[in-house]
């Protein structure tokens, strides 16, 4: 009954059905649905497939990001299986929805660990999500966990490996560039949650270390959408660079008001390190013309990075539509993480947690979104190339790229 792409009914699905049939009459109609969400490889092996759990926000506020994560994981799975799998075993994805809701997430991640008994879990996008599910995976579940999103750093729990950019990676090269291409007077308008606080702490150090000055660092409620006071402060204090960590929904109106006040016209530089191809559409292109961002990948990188071009082309072919492959929402970290883990399992010749963690500690890949990447031994964070891009008429232009791999400086 299972076709090549492999949505299926399994033995575990049947017991679940039976349980439900007897317990809840309401589910009768529903249980005849699509079956459980496991994506089986087309072939098996003597030892059975390697089970990979993906826990991501398929629904809820950041569903667009979670779906991109699930898509890229499916793409990586196909690639790996097409080349014979890992250690001669195919990999099999178990995708669970964390629903942008931590309570639901814990229940769903338990399915991966306790019911499906996966060998590794990838996922989580926000830091609060990582915090919610990490215990279930790592401490109670004794399973390896790979976290793919750019974040504030400081996650140093053993058996958690981070494959997205850290504050050091997003600031060390970017802030000097901003000073050269903007000025020395910085404003740090921010949303009031953990990531901006920790990122700004680091950014301030780099700004001041390079002879710049922070004019103000302010935190606003997450749902604030009126920023005229902030804009006024930026204009009257002759700020050169706005290093923004205000997030949607506030960021749209903020950038619009800043544009209307004439900030960019008088030569001000707008910057925001989570801005990728998704967030680019929040404002009209002319309102954010010249916005600078620094990430591990932009679509524009594909012009002269053949590895990235291949992944991007493959993604666009398999998943046309509006769920795009972008760095700000963990999709690049997801691909990088899967490949690093593949390298580690291959070296360890086993999926045992200890062995894989030991190999993953120094794993390297020569090709990934944005180029090669390698884990920093003992740090469980990932060195990668970083790119500085500027928004130009609704797309990005790469204006600077790191010389080599940038150190995450964590743990």
């Amino acid at each position, binding site marked *: 009954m299972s076709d090549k792409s492999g949505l299926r009914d399994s033995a575990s699905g049947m017991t679940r059905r039976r349980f*439900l049939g007897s317990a*809840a009459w309401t589910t009768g109609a529903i249980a005849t649905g699509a079956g459980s969400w496991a994506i089986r490889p087309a072939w098996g092996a003597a030892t059975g497939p390697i089970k990979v759990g993906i826990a991501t926000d398929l629904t809820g506020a950041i569903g667009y990001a979670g779906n991109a994560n699930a898509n890229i994981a499916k793409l990586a799975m196909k690639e790996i299986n097409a080349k014979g799998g890992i250690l001669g075993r195919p990999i099999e994805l178990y995708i669970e929805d964390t629903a942008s809701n*931590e309570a639901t997430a814990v229940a769903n991640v338990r399915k991966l660990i*306790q019911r499906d008994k996966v060998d590794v879990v990838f996922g989580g996008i926000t830091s609060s999500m990582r915090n919610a599910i990490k215990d279930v995976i790592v401490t109670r579940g004794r399973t390896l966990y790979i976290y793919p999103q750019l974040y504030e750093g400081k996650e140093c729990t053993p058996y958690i490996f981070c494959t997205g950019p850290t504050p050091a990676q997003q600031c060390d090269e970017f802030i000097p560039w901003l000073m050269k291409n903007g000025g020395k007077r910085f404003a740090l308008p921010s949303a009031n949650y953990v990531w901006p606080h920790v990122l700004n702490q680091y950014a301030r150090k780099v700004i001041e270390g390079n002879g710049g000055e922070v004019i103000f660092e302010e935190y606003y*409620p997450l749902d604030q959408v009126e920023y005229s006071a902030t804009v006024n402060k930026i204009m009257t204090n002759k700020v050169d660079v706005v290093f923004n960590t205000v997030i949607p929904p506030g960021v749209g109106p903020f950038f619009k008001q800043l544009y209307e006040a004439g900030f960019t016209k008088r030569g001000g530089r707008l910057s925001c390190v989570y801005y990728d191809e998704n967030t680019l559409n929040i404002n009209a292109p002319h309102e954010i013309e010249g916005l600078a961002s620094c990430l591990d990948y932009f679509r524009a990188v594909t012009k002269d990075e053949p590895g990235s071009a291949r992944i991007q082309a493959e993604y666009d072919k398999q998943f046309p539509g509006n769920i795009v492959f972008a760095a700000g929402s963990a999709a690049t970290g997801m691909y990088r993480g899967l490949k690093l883990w593949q390298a580690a399992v291959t070296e360890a010749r086993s999926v045992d947690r200890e062995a894989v963690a030991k190999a993953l500690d120094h794993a390297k890949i020569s090709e990934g979104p944005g180029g090669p990447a390698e884990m920093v031994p003992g740090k469980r964070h990932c060195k990668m190339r970083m790119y500085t891009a500027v928004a130009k008429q609704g797309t990005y232009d790469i204006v600077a790229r790191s010389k080599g791999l940038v150190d995450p400086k964590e743990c």
Partner: protein
Amino acid sequence: MMPARALEGLLLVVFALLPLALQPFWVIFVTRVLILALLALSFDLVWGFAGIMSFGQALFFGAAGYVVALLARDAGVTSVFVVLPAALAVGLALAFLVASFLLLGRHPPSITFVALGTLTGSYAGDRLARGWYYLGGQNGIPSIPPMTAGPAQVSEGVTYYYLALAFLIAVYAACRFLVGSQFGLALAGIRINEARMAFFGYSVQLLKAVVFSVAGAIAGIAGGLYAFHEGFVWPNMLGVILSTQIVLYALFGGVGTLIGAVIGVIAIEIVSFVLADAYPTVWPVILGVLLLVVILFRPSGLISLFVPRRIPGEVDGAA
């Protein structure tokens, strides 16, 4: 169709024997359901029996969760004999505080006032937790160590299951006793005609404040159990979304019956589980439609499928 008592007995036997038949994963799943059932009970007590529309039960649940998480994180206290009484006390005290503000004013408050007041409390708690870095801000408090009983760990699984079940049975029995007592009859009177009860000389608002505080204490116990079971607390645990979910649990199962709240939790959690598996990208929408359909066409909840008529001596649903 069966009488409510038979339904209660059946559920009791099923829950008592369930771990023998289930794999560990399911035991943990059902433990969570039991804890949420406690929470739904606390709402049914105030709305179904005293007619107080509490849109803020999550406040007491979450506050107790945060307090036990802090006890575990900062004071290293994880003993079940300390943390659960502490959770109960936090729920009780906070609910009494809210009740004295909302209910014990000079004029008797309207249902809308209390509903919005409790909703505001829940919202304020959520915002406070998000902005307060001692509480971990947006990220909450992760990695709460396991609960202990003397030298032994009460870890998730069969032990925790029976702990939660014991609390659920005890609280359920206490609620049953409470609503059947003179106090419960007075509450029913208040719900049906408050002015007349006041005329009879009952201190109506005080009775309401008492039942509201008791319900707060129950939500507190649930919060303490939940925090240790899930291993983390986060701002949404205090917030409006969970508060609303609690109302849905009770409405879905049937309010004013106690057992209905428990059935509501079981049904919603199982349906969510199946839907999330079968339709990972649209399941919340399907769940929403399903809830709407049941509440529209079965206003007295799922319980009305099992129990045909009003039970003698029992009070009816959301009048």
